[in-house]
């Protein structure tokens, strides 16, 4: 029987093609990272000084098995990109979630408990944001030395304020709403209220920010590799490949271009995923 209301409720947002594409690329990346040893045609670290700068398969002079060509040390570009996905996802997931955890926790406490807690945390946010982010990370890496743990630490230390600021504002807004007052009247303690009442409502924003943060984490790793501060070991990273490829861009453009495209698509996927989730969760958008 036809829907007899005036049809306003019937407006559903179709899952955008962008969301499918973003999700698809990220799953592909996850699979590549997890099954890297099976998927990668060559050992990413194996060097062959006689197979340097082979072009991708469609150009003449290419070698079978080296689909996207080799770099100046004769290492297979495709395998390094696949293994690079591991580091990118580790950085994105680990750094992203730790930043989210710390930032949101502090934001939630500041936003809901207010009083001196809010004062202290807000001052902390102000101080932290007064540091120029890139310069601070370079300084930090100079202190703790390059390496995977330093990148993650650098991202967490720089970006937690992003979560804290937004979550605090959201928690403050939610706190003012009536349903919170009624919960407290029903005898639930302040912390209980915060966790069971405020958190579920603030969660959508946190999830959206988390996906965006993952994209940013991958970018920061690329910036640090560009300034030669990324991880020190041989493990391939996209940022490192881009920095190395830059020197011989005219002779072997593929060493720079393919990791650049992969990095670009990954960060784009994270941002579109974030946008898509934001629309899904946001009831206001008719």
């Amino acid at each position, binding site marked *: 029987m036809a829907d*007899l209301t*005036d*049809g*306003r409720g*019937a*407006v559903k947002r179709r899952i955008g093609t962008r969301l499918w594409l973003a999700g698809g690329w990220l799953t592909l990346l996850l699979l590549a990272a997890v099954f890297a040893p099976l998927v990668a045609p060559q050992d990413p670290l194996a060097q062959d000084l006689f197979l340097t700068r082979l072009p991708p398969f469609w150009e003449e002079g290419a070698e079978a098995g080296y689909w996207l060509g080799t770099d100046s040390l004769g290492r297979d570009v495709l395998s390094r990109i696949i293994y690079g996905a591991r580091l990118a996802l580790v950085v994105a997931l680990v750094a992203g979630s730790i930043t989210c955890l710390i930032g949101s926790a502090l934001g939630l406490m500041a936003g809901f408990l207010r009083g001196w807690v809010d004062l202290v945390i807000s001052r902390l946010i102000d101080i932290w944001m007064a540091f120029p982010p890139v310069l601070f990370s370079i300084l930090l890496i100079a202190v703790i030395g390059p390496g995977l743990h330093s990148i993650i630490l650098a991202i967490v230390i720089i970006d937690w304020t992003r979560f804290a600021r937004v979550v605090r504002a959201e928690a403050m807004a939610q706190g003012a709403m009536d349903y919170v007052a009624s919960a407290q009247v029903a005898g639930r303690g302040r912390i209980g209220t915060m966790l069971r009442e405020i958190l579920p409502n603030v969660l959508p924003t946190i999830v959206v920010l988390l996906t965006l943060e993952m994209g940013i984490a991958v970018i920061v790793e690329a910036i640090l590799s560009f300034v030669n501060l990324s991880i020190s070991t041989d493990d391939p990273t996209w940022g490192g490949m881009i920095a190395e490829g830059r020197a011989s861009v005219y002779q072997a453009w593929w060493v720079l271009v393919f990791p650049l495209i992969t990095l670009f698509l990954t960060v784009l996927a994270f941002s579109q995923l974030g946008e898509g989730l934001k629309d899904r969760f946001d009831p206001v958008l008719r």
Partner: protein
Amino acid sequence: MSFLSVKNLTLRLRDNRAPLLRDVSLEVSAGEVHGLVGESGAGKSMIGKAVLGILPRAVEIAGGEIWLDGVDLLTLPPAARRKRVGGLAALIPQDPLTALNPSRRIGPQITDRLVDILGWKRTEAEARALDLLGEVQINDPARVMRQYPHELSGGMRQRILIASAFAAEPKLIVADEPTTALDVTVQKQILRLIAGMQARHGTALLFVTHDLGVVSKVCQSLSVLYAGRILEQSTVRDFFAAPTHPYSAALLGATPKYTDPEGSLTPVPEAIIARLRAEIAAYDEAHHG
């Protein structure tokens, strides 16, 4: 010839084609006050929006004609249609708190249409605005002209919106539940104000409301809507004497009377709702979207 003539107007949602208005037709002649009555969601305000060309993007006009002063608006190109509506018609919005632009002073929000669309000189427009602010019983209109919306009460803002609507001497005004958002004490004054100005200016008035009491006081004729269909059209006198459609009678029973505040109220019986649903379903079947 009636000033406003809506013929077989059908509205649908763009993405899933759910029907909002089903073949609505009505006539409003110059100076007549016509009420559009129905429960919320019956599509009554959609008719007003369709006439003024301010339908939400998600809604499309699937059929019908809207004749305004002898011209079918739907045949006009958008720019010409806008100009025509701007010159001939005006809207009194429902919620005065959000209908005034918070970052602009009151004066320009009344005179902009006169100067930009109708080509008045600035001084003429301002004089007109002061005139009308006086007519809507606002004291010290000059000061109000320079104030910002947030400095005024809801009632004051609705008066300003009414003044703004009548400023261009429109032939037709659509009042979209103009008093619903106000508290009761102010409602009566605003109703009396609108009725008075309508009489003085001889403007045709399409009055959208869910309150039959208001209709009885302000309107000369009315249409009763349910789920986007007009069930009954008649003069106010005949309607209140003997409503023809059972739903109308039930509706009357469910409306508190000013004259009899203690009268008991009977909700619309289920049977009538069921019959209405069948009627609508039959209509849809015949027109299968």
